[in-house]
């Protein structure tokens, strides 16, 4: 209990909130990294998944990429990137690693969502004379939306976790409070940083939960 009160004291100390290493700056960094990398990875993964899903090609790619995403340690990729020329651009390794690890859930879920659209509906749409583009945007995309959104949610939570580990490899974000705590051998600081990260992750998860509940019925996950 002592550690918890000490961590609480650390958190509520106004001096720890301001400045370059302050909680406020780290929080904004973490949020910025998460949002920017989520957008980037969506921009990369979703068009590919939608086109592949529409054409019905590349199932093997979707399978393999998600297996690889699980087996490759985040920390290893971060350090490998840090030692390559990418490492010289400040947050470069963090951004690249974050995007890489957000792509598998996005790609796989969007692809599967597209493929699980009722074939009867697709054939009916074709029979009505819809072009490929109309079919994609007016039939397949809306019907695959719940699973796609679910992939975005998983990717977002994953991004928060990866951004935390990035601190081990010198990246910014809330993880820096934890690593600084370890370097200073200050357990209250480590626990305070961990609490911030945990709450941040749970808030992101909660935001998506609420978004899914508020979404119109067709966009809601029926699973």
């Amino acid at each position, binding site marked *: 209990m002592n550690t918890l009160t000490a961590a609480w004291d650390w958190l509520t100390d106004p001096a720890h909130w301001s400045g370059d290493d302050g909680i406020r700056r780290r929080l904004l960094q973490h949020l910025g990294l998460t949002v920017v990398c989520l957008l980037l990875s969506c921009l990369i993964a979703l068009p590919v998944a939608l086109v592949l899903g529409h054409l019905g090609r590349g199932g093997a790619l979707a399978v393999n990429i998600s297996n690889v995403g*699980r087996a*490759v340690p985040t*920390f*290893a990729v971060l350090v490998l990137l840090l030692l390559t020329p990418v490492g010289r651009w400040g947050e470069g390794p963090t951004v690249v690693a974050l995007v890489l690890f957000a792509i598998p859930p996005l790609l796989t879920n969007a692809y599967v969502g597209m493929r699980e659209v009722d074939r009867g509906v697709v054939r009916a749409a074709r029979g009505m004379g819809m072009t490929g583009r109309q079919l994609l945007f007016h039939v397949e995309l809306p019907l695959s939306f719940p699973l796609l959104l679910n992939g975005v*949610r998983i990717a977002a939570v994953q991004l928060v976790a990866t951004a935390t580990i990035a601190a081990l490899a010198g990246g910014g974000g809330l993880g820096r409070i*934890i690593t600084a705590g*370890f370097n200073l051998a200050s357990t209250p600081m*480590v626990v305070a940083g961990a609490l911030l*990260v945990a709450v941040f992750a749970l808030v992101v998860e909660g935001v998506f939960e609420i978004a899914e509940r508020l979404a119109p019925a067709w966009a809601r996950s029926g699973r």
Partner: protein
Amino acid sequence: MTAPPDDCLARNEWICGAYLSTRRQILLDAVVQHLQLTFLSVLIGLAVALPLAVLARRWAWAAGPVLAVTTILYTIPSLAMFSLLLPLYGLSATLVVAGLVLYSLTLLVRNILAGLRAVPEETRQAARGLGYGPVRLLLTVELPLALPAATAGLRIATVSAVSLVTVGAIVGFGGLGNLIYAGMNTYFKAQVLTASVLCVLIAVAADLLLLGVQRLITPWTRPARGRARRPWKAPGSASRPWAAAGPAPRPWKARR
């Protein structure tokens, strides 16, 4: 003055045979620690998850809270999880194992529960009709039928654990992660790449091993010869071969 040796170590190359031969013992120790941490945490996770899943199956009211708690645990990033356990376990291997156990719980409980729920009601009734009591029913009918789903979860949990052990480097017990961490601080490319590749190899080997074990103990799920296997089975279904190409990948499961 002797000239500095001009080998791949001195040139700090990514791929370096001299590294492998001179640091064999260090690599071996790291791999052994990596395997121990993974094995222990998955084993303990299984020992905790099994009764939880059985309880959640028996009493429907327990299922909600059990799944909710394990899901919340799974949402917490690994580095934060290890850090939160620091006051309890200090800088020890126990801390890493405890953190990994908490992670594997979600995957294992959810999969075992899905497997138990998928046992057909007729099968259970048939067993009861033959005079099976609840314990015998569980041990000889329900659990064996839940095995494919349970091993699917076990494989995902093991692969994730292999990858997460590396984060344990923050407390000095990260197996190959220690080498990656040290290699990062000294800018030692060969060490980082070798340790990373070994990590992935361990994950692939563990996954294939578990797949083999699953095939052995559940011969009835083996597909008929000549028919394409379905790849990427999600929790609740049978198997998830590593790199099988095929038409039907399964989505990543929502964490709830």
